[in-house]
């Protein structure tokens, strides 16, 4: 042990040889990742920004540097494009409907599971199942469940005498129908995070509140919720980030219809790419990126301590 102490002691005084060795080794270890990352992640992020200021089209694909700069034209055009406005609205609606619903369901289930003594692990795994499945595959299944005639939902509604609507054929119902599926598909992640958060609340706090005469609801409202605040905010942000990018469910279930009522910002970008309007697509994707950055910024701004909360929860 004393050798270790001496050795570290000397190391800090005559740093150079070991230090250099360490730095060389570190960069050797980092190199494969850094190269791949630079070429396939960081590069494209910057290239996309550059592209958004050009008139690049599919015909320029072999010669991407021969395109004309057009300044902010793409962005100006986007803001004036009625379809882009519509998809922005759809995306926001999806976010505003989806996030609170997902959080409410996740919190209810988490609080429930947190109160039971048996089957905890079983329930947690069961409720989490949809999260690991492919959105494309579950969209195919839900499209089948949503069918007008013979679909599961309308059959069940039929039992109580309600003639169910064509969920995915209506411009007002299609988007909420996709949201409902998204809630089902995604709440499991938040449930697990909330459960971890709930377990960090010391039971003494709850007991103290009870001694003071607080009822179950008011303990939940005034003790549990405030103590869970960082976890809840974090959950809202990561769910929001996912919902801002929704695409697959619309692609499979509605093809963005009826009348573009389920076309999202990502879908719009994908379409523009398909039409060969690369510069325009890049600009649209960057506006979406801006929304993502804003949301992430909110996260860093409001909840620096979230790692602590979740990690502590895991160690219980």
């Amino acid at each position: 042990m004393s050798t270790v102490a001496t050795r570290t002691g000397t190391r800090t005084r005559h740093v150079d040889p070991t230090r250099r060795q360490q730095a060389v080794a570190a960069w050797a270890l980092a190199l494969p990742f850094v190269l791949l990352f630079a070429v396939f992640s960081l590069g494209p992020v910057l290239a996309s920004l550059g592209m958004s200021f050009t008139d690049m089209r599919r015909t320029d694909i072999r010669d991407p540097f021969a395109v004309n700069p057009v300044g902010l034209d793409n962005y100006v055009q986007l803001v004036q494009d009625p379809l882009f406005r519509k998809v922005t609205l759809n995306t926001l609606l999806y976010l505003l409907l989806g996030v609170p619903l997902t959080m409410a369901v996740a919190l209810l289930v988490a609080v429930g599971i947190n109160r039971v003594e048996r089957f905890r692990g079983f329930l947690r795994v069961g409720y989490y199942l949809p999260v690991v499945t492919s959105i494309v595959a579950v969209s195919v299944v839900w499209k089948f469940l949503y069918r007008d005639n013979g679909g599961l939902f309308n059959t069940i509604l039929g039992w109580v005498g309600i003639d169910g609507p064509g969920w995915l054929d209506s411009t007002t119902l299609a988007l909420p129908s996709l949201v409902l599926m998204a809630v089902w598909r995604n709440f499991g992640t938040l449930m697990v995070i909330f459960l971890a958060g709930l377990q960090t609340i010391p039971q003494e706090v709850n007991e103290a509140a009870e001694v003071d005469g607080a009822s179950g609801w008011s303990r939940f409202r005034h003790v549990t919720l405030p103590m869970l605040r960082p976890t809840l905010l974090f959950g809202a942000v990561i769910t929001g980030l996912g919902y801002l990018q929704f695409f697959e469910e619309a692609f499979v279930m509605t093809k963005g219809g009826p009348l573009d009522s389920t076309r999202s910002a990502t879908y719009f970008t994908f379409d523009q790419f398909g039409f060969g309007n690369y510069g325009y697509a890049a600009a649209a994707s960057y506006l979406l990126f801006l929304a993502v950055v804003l949301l992430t910024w909110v996260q860093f701004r409001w909840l620096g301590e979230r790692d602590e909360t979740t990690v502590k929860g895991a160690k219980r």
Partner: protein
Amino acid sequence: MSTLTAERQAAPPKAPASRGGGEWRRTPTWLYGVLFAGLFLVVVPFVWMLLSSLKPEAEVRAVPPTWWPETITLDNYSTLFTKLDFPTYFLNSAIVALAVTAGNMVFCSMLGYALAKLDFPGKKALFAIVLGTLMIPGVVTFVPLFVLTTNIGLSNTLLGMVLPFLAGPFGVFLMRQFIQALPDELIQAARIDGAGELRIFFSVILPLCGPALATLGILTFLTSWNNFLWPLVVAQTEEKYTLPVALALYSVGQNATQYGLLLAGSVVVVLPVLAIFLVLQRHIMQGIAMTGIK
């Protein structure tokens, strides 16, 4: 909510304290009822998918629908695997997912170790950049990535599908978190024994990373298996489709009304990951709690 309040007030005020934060009160029976009913609702779509995929096409479309299949048949599956090219799609999905998983396990643990335990110039900046890209949506990069892969001759190849996902920031974050918690003394002792820096990583640190590597491996595999946008962009001919791409394109194309077939296809996509998840769920739950994402 009133039921909940009443229930709690009716219980004796001094329940014996037990372990977890929430377990300070005896569980009311109705709560089990509610939780299991909820679980049933969550699982119903999967059950419905499986049962319907075993029905002949005419029965799949029956109004009102049958619950238990009147005729059980594997016709839909045999069509998928003989008339359509699902064996190829399955293989493509597996190859891509395994390659991406292997790459992430190797490259992310290497960088994760360097960031956690070694001192080098540029370390802080590197970590900040990697962390900063954690949230970048795939939609931002796919257009320039497509231009790039086309120009280096990788469009419509599996390699083109793999490369952009070979080194993800999530894995670095996870591995760094894990390795940081390993004791420094291990590394110092190995240095005293004269082990080189790279050797320390491969023979001292890596063997201890089992749990984190398992978590990373499973999460990466699942994510890659379900990945859609990029494979959709890269794959241009049918023999390069992955399962989600094939399923999505069939479901909006000429097979759009063959529900039995499409549901069987969904089963083929979903069943392997459900099986993997159920067997290895412990690692996944750890990963979510550790990083708070995915």
